[in-house]
């Protein structure tokens, strides 16, 4: 058996870890541990000099196992695996101890935090001793892509991939392409007509030889894994589709404000949502219920957004949309007075601050309200020319104000689709607390999901406008086209295998495998794992009564040793 030579590296992460954990003490404590040849701390292990230091140590001290105590392995395990390869070591001879997300960021007592870090690193040292070199596995990538959702994000993704000459299956639940943007008149900040853009894309898609569109279609089940997914569409005749990657662009929907009593939506005439106002703009007619033109239009921001009773998040697009309305109203009805009643003006992004500055030049009064404590109240103002009155405390002046209006536009929040949760379950991805699809990492991997080969773009990932949706769609398709260009993709190596000598042939493993990856070899009377189908959950290993199933990288030995290390007294 090879001589185990372990290098232990404790990251400061600047002050992120070092402020709460005595990193030098942790490094010192590890020096005496069995098989540990070298133990160091350093400011940023993930930096080039940090990695170089480790690579040099590996060469100089013939290290063959590495423990890095730093951030979550979900952030930098891949970085350090690549570093292992650079140093000529198998990437799986690495173990990370999470002393940032699990220690320094969640505890304040330096002594307890340091002790916890020491124990976690000991666990990692014990575990890594039993790590084995694992060979990378590759599968061929099916060149076709499934795009779910025919809105602006989905259409952009479909065209991007198809223009590169690769097949796209575009699935749309409704009977037409276009999504939400099809119901928008013009787009901030430059006021181009949304319909022009949508119509152009629909035409391109319909004429594209590489795009097959399925309207009125819902995906009910997906099987397979990155490179090799499949689904069967039920359209009278079953149609089986095979594809290597998936783009989810299922969009968002608008909040319906009937629960917010203050606004009397649905109770008083001419209190309408931004969605309803947009439809008026599309028709080119801003009309009250009685058919006349309004003279005093009030716009109320953050309806259902940034409010703990509805949605705590900011819906991102409403402030700029409201400013767009001010421009459009001023153009269509120069005489109308406009009141913009906002909580905070968030007209961020290229060209949008300018939209705010120029809106202020119109016939508009900006009034601020306190979103937390004091929502404006819309009441009837009987017998007056403006039949509505809005009462609230204006935050900047501190004065109670009464704003007359004959039309009130509620800038409603954007929220996750009703079926977001069940769709996420069909595709095996996660949703966040607001039911938007969760990205793999908000900064490092913003359009991928934790399921390889599945990407999320547009409003289904978080509320966003056309510009951001298109950017995300293009980002995801770049990732997909790269994987198609590679022709193969690396897949999970941490699969299960059967040690035939000790398999008793009970077939318990076969009954628990969710992927039907295990079969029974009649001639030998033992189970056999098909490693292409296996995804490495390890459920079979836990169920195996004889310990014949070996779950790579999470073996019994490795986990038990880690438990020993974490609970060891010295």
């Amino acid at each position, binding site marked *: 058996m090879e001589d185990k030579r372990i290098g232990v590296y404790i990251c400061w992460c600047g002050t992120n870890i070092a402020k709460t954990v005595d990193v030098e003490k942790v490094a010192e404590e590890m020096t005496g541990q069995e098989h540990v040849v070298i133990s160091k701390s350093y400011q940023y292990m993930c930096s080039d000099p940090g990695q170089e230091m480790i690579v040099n140590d590996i060469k100089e001290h013939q290290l063959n196992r590495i423990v890095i105590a730093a951030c979550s392995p979900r952030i930098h395990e891949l970085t350090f695996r690549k570093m292992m390869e650079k140093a000529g070591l198998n990437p799986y001879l690495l173990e990370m101890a999470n002393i940032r997300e699990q220690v320094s960021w969640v505890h304040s007592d330096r002594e307890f935090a340091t002790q916890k870090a020491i124990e976690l690193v000991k666990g990692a040292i014990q575990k890594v001793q039993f790590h084995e070199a694992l060979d990378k596995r590759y599968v061929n990538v099916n060149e076709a892509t499934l795009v779910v959702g025919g809105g602006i994000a989905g259409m952009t993704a479909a065209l991007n991939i198809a223009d590169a000459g690769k097949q796209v299956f575009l699935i749309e639940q409704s009977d037409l392409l276009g999504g939400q943007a099809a119901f928008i008149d013009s787009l901030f900040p430059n006021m181009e007509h949304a319909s022009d853009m949508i119509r152009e894309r629909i035409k391109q898609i319909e004429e594209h030889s590489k795009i097959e569109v399925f309207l009125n279609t819902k995906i009910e089940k997906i099987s397979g894994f990155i490179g090799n997914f499949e689904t069967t569409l039920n359209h009278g005749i079953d149609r089986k589709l095979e594809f290597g990657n998936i783009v989810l662009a299922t969009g968002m929907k608008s909040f319906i404000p009937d629960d917010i009593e203050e606004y009397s939506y649905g109770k008083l005439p001419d209190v309408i949502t931004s969605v309803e106002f947009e439809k008026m703009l599309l028709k080119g007619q801003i009309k009250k219920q009685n058919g006349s033109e309004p003279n005093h239009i009030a716009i109320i921001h953050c309806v259902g957004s940034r409010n703990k009773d509805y949605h705590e998040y900011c819906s991102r697009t409403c402030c700029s949309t409201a400013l767009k309305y001010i421009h459009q109203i001023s153009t269509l009805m120069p005489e109308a007075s406009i009141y913009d009643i906002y909580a905070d003006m968030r007209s961020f992004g290229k060209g949008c601050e300018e939209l705010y500055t120029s809106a202020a030049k119109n016939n508009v009064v900006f009034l601020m309200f306190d979103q937390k404590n004091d929502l404006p109240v819309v009441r009837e103002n009987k017998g007056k020319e403006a039949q509505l009155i809005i009462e609230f405390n204006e935050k900047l002046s501190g004065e109670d104000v009464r704003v007359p209006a004959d039309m009130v536009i509620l800038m409603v929040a954007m929220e996750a689709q009703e079926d977001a949760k069940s769709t996420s379950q069909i595709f095996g991805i996660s949703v966040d607390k607001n039911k938007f699809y969760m990205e793999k990492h908000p900064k490092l991997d913003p359009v991928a999901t934790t399921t390889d080969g599945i990407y999320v773009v547009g409003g289904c990932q978080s509320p966003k406008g056309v510009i951001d949706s298109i950017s995300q769609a293009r980002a995801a398709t770049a990732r997909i086209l790269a994987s198609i260009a590679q022709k193969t993709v690396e897949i999970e190596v941490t699969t299960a295998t059967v040690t035939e000598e000790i398999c008793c042939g009970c077939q318990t493993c076969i009954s628990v495998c969710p992927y039907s990856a295990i079969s029974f070899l009649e001639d030998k009377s033992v189970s056999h794992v098909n490693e292409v189908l296996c995804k490495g*959950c390890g459920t079979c290993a836990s169920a195996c009564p004889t310990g014949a199933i070996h779950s790579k990288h999470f073996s019994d030995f490795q986990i038990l040793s880690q438990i020993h290390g974490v609970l060891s007294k010295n």
Partner: protein
Amino acid sequence: MTFEPKIISFLCNWCSYTGADLAGSSRLKYAHNIRIIRVMCSGRVEPTFVLEAFKKGADGILICGCHPGDCHYHEGNHKCQRRYTLLQKYIQQMGIDESRLKLEWISASEGKQFAELVNEFTESIQQLGPASYHKKLSFA
């Protein structure tokens, strides 16, 4: 001196470990006693792991997986739950209070819930006092 229990926690990689990471990146403070061991799926948590941890001196064990229906591997969490039910009965026979072993579902977005769960569980173990199982018997 207050009793500082040793708590071992098995978290599935996809939901619960990510939820714990979220508690970290949101800088939510929770009791320091917990030591997390990552497994790919809660279905990987073998009864042996739990028993070994008690044997080596753990005072409490917290297993977390994805919510039912959300398992990255379809139904590993259901397998975990079935084992857990049996395991709770089994540990009682060994003289270990069943409430020293807990199974909860934590999704990737439930950082706050994770922090609260850790605090509640730690407190409940503190009230129970040290587990004496590993002291009562000696193991070869």
